């Protein structure tokens, strides 16, 4: 018997394509406070893009601009080749941008399943009348959506909490449910605001795995804000660094790590 030993490798293939979203010279002010000034960067299709920076650097403001929650006073955002003027969050959502929040924003009294189902709301086509009747075509539609949601539940391994109210769940699981809801929108661009804040090591590792799987399996482009540098450097393809609303660096994790401005921003510098 010619017993040939197995040789296999599990290296994924990185393939980042054209620009999906570009932020061009945007500035955002709240009265006299400049949250973001003149920042430009782009997010390519299929990549994991991290936005980092010390506290108050304008990271969350940046995400809020991207999904239309804030309107920058200057500059423009181009998404899928389309320049967006005034844009509302629900339009962003319909256009394929989903997000999770720094502080979990779920419906606490609803079950995991129902929370994730809310992510499908925009895709429900039947009118209020049919929905209320919950019969015939509306039922068909709901079954189809439920299938997608069950896939997500399976994907995130949260079968055991399917029917539990999310308010009762530990924080790490709530974060996972929130990710599930965002995924239910089948977004092209997923914005994650500190997906690992407040998690223990094991939960963090799980979350990293899920983020990588989402990116590889669904090809979802991901922009994330994260404070854990280990996580950022391992996960992301490219990193943009903000400080006091300004961009101070942009590049691969290795480039950013070697950047003097970044080191100064994080470690402080003698003036």
């Amino acid at each position, binding site marked *: 018997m010619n017993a040939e030993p*197995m040789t296999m490798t599990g290296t994924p293939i990185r393939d980042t394509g054209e620009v999906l979203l570009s932020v061009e010279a945007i500035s955002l002010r709240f009265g006299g406070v400049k949250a973001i000034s003149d920042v430009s960067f782009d997010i390519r299709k299929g990549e994991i893009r991290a936005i980092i920076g010390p506290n108050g650097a304008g990271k969350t403001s940046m995400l809020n601009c991207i999904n239309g929650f804030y309107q920058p006073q200057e500059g423009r955002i181009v998404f899928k080749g389309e320049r967006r003027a005034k844009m509302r969050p629900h339009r962003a959502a319909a256009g394929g941008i989903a997000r999770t929040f720094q502080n979990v924003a779920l419906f606490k009294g609803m079950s995991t399943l129902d929370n994730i189902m809310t992510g499908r709301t925009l895709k429900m086509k039947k009118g209020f009348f049919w929905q209320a009747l919950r019969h015939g075509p509306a039922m068909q539609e709901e079954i189809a959506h439920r299938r997608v949601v069950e896939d997500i539940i399976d994907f995130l391994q949260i079968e055991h909490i399917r029917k539990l109210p999310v308010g009762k769940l530990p924080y790490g699981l709530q974060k996972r449910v929130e990710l599930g809801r965002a995924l239910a929108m089948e977004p092209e661009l997923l914005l994650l605001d500190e997906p690992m804040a407040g998690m223990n090591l094991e939960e963090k590792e799980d979350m990293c795995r899920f983020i990588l799987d989402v990116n590889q399996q669904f090809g979802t482009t991901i922009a994330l804000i994260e404070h854990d540098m280990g996580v950022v450097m391992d996960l992301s393809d490219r990193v943009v660094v903000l400080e006091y609303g300004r961009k101070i660096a942009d590049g691969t994790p290795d480039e950013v790590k070697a950047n003097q401005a970044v080191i100064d921003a994080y470690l402080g510098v003698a003036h």
Partner: protein
Amino acid sequence: MASGIEGRADTFPKLLMRNARDRAGRIAFRHKDLGIWQSWNWAEVAEQVRGFAQGLKQLGLKRGEKVAIVGYNRPRLYWSMCAAQWLGAVPVPVYADSVADEMAYVLDHAEAAFAVVQDQEQVDKILSITDRLPHLRQMLYDEPRGLRDYDHATLHAIESVIADGAGALREQAAAEVLDREMAAGQGSDLGIILYTSGTTGRPKGVMLSHTNVIVAAEIGCSFDGLSETDEVIAYLPIAWVGDHVFSYAQAMLAGFCVNCPESPETVIDDRREVGTTYAFAPPRVFETMLTLTMVRMEDAGALKRRMFHYFLDVAKRYGEQILNGESVPLKGRLLYKLGDLLVYGPLRNRFGLTNIKVGYTAGEAIGPELFRFYRSIGVNLKQLYGQTEAGVYITMQPNGEIKADTVGRPAPLVEIRIDDNGEVLYRSPSIFGGYYKDPEKTAETMTADGFVRSGDAGFFDEGGHLKIIDRAKDVGKLAGGELFPPKYLENKLKFYPNIKEAVAFGQGRDYATVAINIDLTAVGNWAERNNVVYASYQELAGHDLVYDMIARHVDEVNRSLAAEPMMGGAQIQRFLILHKELDADDGELTRTQKVRRGFIAERYAPLVAALYDGSRIADISTEVTFEDGRKGVISARVKVRDARTYPVTTEGAPAPARAA
């Protein structure tokens, strides 16, 4: 009783084809996937297994080769056993939660040529050890998630292997060749190798023939009258003989349905949805269910809580007698009926035991209170005593002869003999054919006249029931000559919901001591209710109030030991609470969650020393292994406490009591 069926279907693939013929439309397997129970009837399962066998054949699997099977309970993994057996290959189920190193040993020792695994996690684990597995040629996986970009030269999805095989079988010639492969199998062929979890040393591969396993299945099926209408849930490790007999062999033989849960965490809910009629679980599972219920009841409203406790008392008084068919006063019967309506029924429903005909517990001694609790609420829970080497059954409790402290009468076809040193020896048609590649160990275990040494010490009581005390080599003596049965002490302690694990020391010492693991669920809940603040397991374990609580439990155990003949000398004089949970990944427990006493004594040597040198505090640092194989060190300062002991009250007990 073996002969009836043997003539016609003496291997599992033949049994499968018999089922496909005789009960084609009956549901054989269910698996909850994407929130829905997917099901397959016997005809469909037979189709799948045939396709699977042909697919394996095309990948080059030969008669006599070994196929490692790694994963949780999934229909396709059970089918892979049957498909391998179809070709005369030997399935070797492996514990899914073994770390890579343990798995490498088993796969290498078994010389596995194929590996059939559940998901990416297992694929990665095996890929990381391929350099140590020179015999491994092909790997198959069930769940494709995350594996898309892997090199598929020697890696295949089970689904596509089955589809390829089924395609090839459309040709008459190929189908005939495959059917001849099945016909070539005989009952005496090696059917399966089950690696024992190894309380001591490396795991050993127990070789069982088709006949061994079929006879074992027959013993169980006829003893409890199992038929094709029964339902079981498969959730115990597939590498364990219990699961192999209950979820595979008996299902094939009796033709009943095997339900595979969605994930290990959803077992209780899934069991509830299915309503199993036949259950098998180690005491730990029953214990966890009860602990969770008790904890939840503490949070319930005052009225509900009082009703719950009142009727539990009623059940304690009358429940068991009613189940055993003894006479009970009318008032008791009426109260019990009411309790059944208000408490026991809903409770059984919660546990998923509403339809249960018979439930078995085995693997470890069950706390008598725990055992009685389930029986008192109307669950026909029984004990059996078994071993992998016996093809599981050695003794079982017949209906109506249930005692909490014995394991029952010899099972049908089983002969038992007690050796001079108290060791239990047994012989039956289902005993194993030897350890794989280990004739020395086989010779040590088998006697010349065909009996197997169980390694357990026990005796028959006046009713002819076997009573197991402990592992034969573990029953020791204190320095003063008093009997010291460590497991007996540990089990008494573990009955308290607050105590998850206990390790007793005392062999050759002046007195007995224990190291205790608290149960985080129960103690954590207690802490919450009593405003005890803690940040970690370690901190909670070291808390003075927790020590006080455990001290009360130890005290009660001592009091009960003092009242038993022979055991009074083994009262616990000192104890401590360990700063970390004992974990199989650190080698402190076996994969079936039994404590490895010797290893623990070595690893925590400074603590054991402190238990005996009178010091009140000891420092310890231990290395821990994380699931991915990385290691870390945790250190702690552990307190040691004295416990009260009682004068021995039973007459004839030799040991004098010491005041501590």
